[in-house]
């Protein structure tokens, strides 16, 4: 963790609101995207991001600033996302498929298609596989960082990634996106 982030966390722990605002600014986008890829719903991702920051704020005094903050807050987000997914019901009327906020010019069409395809495929993965794909490929965490965030050994991270990709290939092949 960078020294300036550690300083920010220490300041926030002492009640410096500006410091926590800086932490929010730093992690808002990445946490929103983590939630979005896990639950595939922008509104839910928005709610989850808000919830996670509140929980992080409430628990901040107990947080050891010498530990990696991102892995701590990502862990909170993953738990919250899994909780939400476990509460979802098939008939839930508020659950809406993720919609692109972009307008639909031609140059955006391909991108939207790729996003829809990949998102649809990763939603077919079980949650442990989905979370490793999201952390590695969308948030660009290293195996070590994933190990911290998921609280599993690096060896397990690697093995889970391998299995997740195997399944992803199968799903994408079935969808006609990749070919053997």
């Amino acid at each position, binding site marked *: 963790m960078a020294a300036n982030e550690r300083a920010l966390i220490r300041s926030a722990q002492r009640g410096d609101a500006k410091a926590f605002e800086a932490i929010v*600014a730093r992690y808002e986008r990445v946490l929103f995207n983590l939630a979005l890829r896990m639950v595939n719903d922008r509104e839910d991702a928005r709610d989850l991001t808000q919830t996670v920051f509140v929980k992080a704020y409430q628990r901040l005094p107990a947080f050891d600033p010498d530990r990696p903050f991102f892995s701590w807050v990502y862990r909170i987000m993953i738990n919250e996302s899994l909780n939400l997914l476990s509460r979802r019901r098939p008939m839930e*009327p*508020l659950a809406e498929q993720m919609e692109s906020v972009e307008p639909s010019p031609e140059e955006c069409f391909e991108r939207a298609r790729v996003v829809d395809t990949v998102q649809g495929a990763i939603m077919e993965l079980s949650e442990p596989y989905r979370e490793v794909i999201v952390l590695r490929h969308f948030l660009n965490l290293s195996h070590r960082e994933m190990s911290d965030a998921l609280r599993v050994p690096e060896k397990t991270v690697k093995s889970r990634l391998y299995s997740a990709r195997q399944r992803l290939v199968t799903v*994408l092949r079935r969808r006609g996106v990749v070919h053997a």
Partner: protein
Amino acid sequence: MNSETLERLMNDVLDGVATPEERALLERHLETDPAARARHRELQGVFELLARVPMEDPPPELRTEVSLALAASSRTHGPARRAPAWTESMRAAFVRRPGLGAASAFAAGALAVAIAVLALTRSLGPAAPGLPVSGTMARPAPGPESLLDTREARVEGATFTITTRRGGDPWTVELAVRAAAPTEIELEFDPERLAVEDVHWSAPAEVHATPGRVRLGAGADVRYRLAFRARGEPSADLSATLRSGKGSAKEVLRMTPGNSIP
């Protein structure tokens, strides 16, 4: 090299975690094994596809929502050290505005909608006595969807958040209840100033409505989205009373749309 070992090696190389020796080993193998080359191309295609998924921008109002939620959290729980000063200034930004005069025609419309909402009633377990929370709805600052306020109330075994938004017309009230036991929420408002247009919920729930009052029952974790139609320019009050068998809590929200939320 068996197929699983080869596959893991491909993963490591594509993932950037292989040693130079491992990369060289894979390259040598691919030169002599067409099936492995095909599989490698396939796996490479998946990596490339994943890399093409961009990070999305969060909704622009999210930062404000987080700030408001933190302010609400400070009131409910209080930070372990001390409340940040900016939450106090945010609270000071909310000022009550005078309401509208009566409008009998509007009240009739409200009654009609309330009757329609009544038709949606679904049954659930009995509600228990308990806890009050209040909010104020008001015209927002201009914008595609303006967050008006958000609060969180917590009692043993239950958490409740309420958010008011406005995206043109109508106003929207969003409620999220997380509770281990049956919970009841009662919304009260002036039927001559506000009318419920629509109610959505995330799980089977009990909904009763009469002019000026909506009662919502929830078994455990339920989200509600209520659309309100307001008449005229000034603000309109809405209070929400939460009842849980395990306790009660009260929040009062006062908002004026002219005050921008930082």
